């Protein structure tokens, strides 16, 4: 073949077409490969090593074995506080977001008119910069001139101090997060729209009512999407940072000290890179463990169409 000949002569005459393709492939992969080694693989190993050292950034790292992890569990009360804050937030927000976003998607799926307008309205908070919305919420929940307490005053309730109160600060974060359900809702909506109408018609012919159709058609058909959104929202809620940094910086009295904020404090405020690395690894293990747990627990509940066909 003329092309093959042309190529081989260009490349020194000793390579076949197949080898040529392989060389080109690795050429295309080179940027990623360098990036993977320099910015992922090496940092992972380095981070694991650093987590076993004491490393105030101005000195060199000193190997201390598992002392960071021991200190975390036995000596750092704020570790437990940050874990508690993040866990409460996750346990509250993941199911709440699941139910509200799914319910909203079902509502939208019923409405024929104005679907795209409503979708835009509910999705808009998800595209507004987190710093801007954090500033906005600080004033909505301002104890004196905020909108929330003005609304409560109308029905004769004296509102709490919201973000300024140790009791209410974390619940306020949870309320605020409900405003951001648009992202999940859009995905659920697409999932609902992809359920074949034939299934509903068949179910109706079999005498299934609205509830039966929901439980036996809608839920199973959208279960992979539900699992995906739940896993990503769980991962996201363990990594909350921006809102906490801007609105409360962990306060009052560490009531909103989220895990990543604690990590940031150790790494860049106290400059303890070793301990911060250990915190990062604990975060990694928690996220990995919870993801695997969710996948395992949901294994029997999720219906994959492709599997059935195979």
């Amino acid at each position: 073949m003329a092309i093959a000949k042309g190529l081989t002569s260009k490349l020194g005459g000793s390579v076949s077409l197949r080898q040529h393709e392989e060389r080109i492939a690795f050429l295309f992969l080179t940027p990623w490969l360098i990036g993977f080694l320099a910015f992922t693989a090496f940092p992972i190993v380095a981070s694991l090593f650093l987590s076993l050292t004491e490393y105030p950034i101005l000195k060199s790292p000193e190997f201390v074995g598992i002392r960071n992890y021991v200190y975390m569990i036995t000596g750092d009360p704020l570790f437990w506080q940050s874990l508690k804050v993040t866990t409460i937030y996750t346990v509250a927000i993941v199911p709440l977001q699941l139910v509200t976003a799914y319910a909203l998607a079902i509502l939208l799926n019923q409405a024929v008119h104005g679907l795209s307008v409503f979708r835009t309205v509910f999705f808009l908070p998800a595209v507004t910069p987190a710093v801007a919305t954090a500033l906005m919420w600080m004033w909505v929940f301002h104890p004196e001139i905020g909108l929330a307490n003005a609304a409560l005053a109308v029905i004769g309730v004296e509102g709490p101090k919201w973000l300024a109160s140790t009791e209410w600060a974390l619940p306020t974060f949870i309320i605020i997060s409900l405003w951001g359900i648009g992202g999940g809702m859009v995905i659920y909506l697409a999932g609902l729209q992809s359920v074949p109408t034939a299934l509903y018609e068949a179910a109706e012919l079999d005498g299934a009512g609205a509830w039966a159709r929901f439980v036996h058609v809608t839920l199973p058909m959208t279960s992979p999407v539900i699992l995906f959104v739940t896993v990503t929202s769980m991962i996201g809620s363990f990594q909350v940072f921006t809102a906490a940094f801007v609105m409360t910086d962990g306060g009052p009295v560490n009531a909103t000290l989220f895990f990543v904020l604690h990590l940031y404090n150790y790494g860049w405020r106290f400059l303890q890179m070793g301990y911060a690395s250990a915190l990062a690894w604990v975060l990694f293990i928690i996220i990995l463990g919870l993801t695997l747990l969710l996948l395992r627990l949901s294994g029997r509940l999720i219906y994959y169409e492709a599997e059935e066909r195979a």
Partner: protein
Amino acid sequence: MQMPTKPQTGMMSRPTVARNSTFQWWQRRRTRNVWLKLIIYALLLGLGLLFMIPFLFMLSSSLKDPQEVWRVPPSWVPNPVFWQNYPYALAQMPFLGYFRNTALLVAGVEIGRLLTASMTAFAFARLRFRWRGPLFILVLSTMMIPFQVTLIPQYLIFKNLQWLNSLKPLIVPAFFGGGAFYVFLLRQFFMTIPLDYDDAARIDGASYFDIFLRIILPLSMPVLGTVAIFTFMEQWNDLLGPLIYLNTADKQTLSIGIAMWSKGGAYPAVHFFSHTMAIALLMSLPPVIIFFLFQRHFIQGVVISGVKG
């Protein structure tokens, strides 16, 4: 000119013959459906308003004069409209500098990511080579690692390179693969383009670079658009990266500059509220405008990454 209107069907053309129980059942059901629809629309309208209220509050507060801000209960329509809050607020910070840095950051990451993530995706989607499967699994598995794990060593690398307080640590990594999620998104799209195109081009003497630049990329504009919009939103909003790497105001982006300014102490509180709202609104405008311009693209992207991811 009056268009001839169709006779109102629906109510008029009821099958009057079928006055039996089936029809009554059908009629009852129809009435119930109308009520259901009404309830659904009422709920959607109410919830929609609830979702918009914080935005309206932000807009109205950004236009209030210092006295009106402290009025309880808060008013909705500012009287007088105090638009001077905007120039006053902008004068409080090097807003244009922040804006320029943010634009540079976004542009840099866009170029690096669109180029190298699509190169990586091209290799995985269109070329045959040893260890393609295992390597792709490696790409996917890097998505599982929270970025906080690699953050500290990366910071130390850039510190040693003396790149701190510059945009380089935030831009340069994007030129090395562009991130696993985006490689995955692009690869999935590239896979849908028939391989015959490549073969035909090869027979015509095109190189793999020609195929990449002249066939695959032009055919992949929708997904490249999705990647571009996602990247814009992500970089415009990112706080932790700029917080760690950018220390002085002349280098900072909008998100970190505004966050730091909002924490600054000595500023008189009477102005602070309106000015904060004005700044927050200005910062939100570019992503919101981009969202409205490319809404279909964007929502499509969210859906693809959610349903097929």
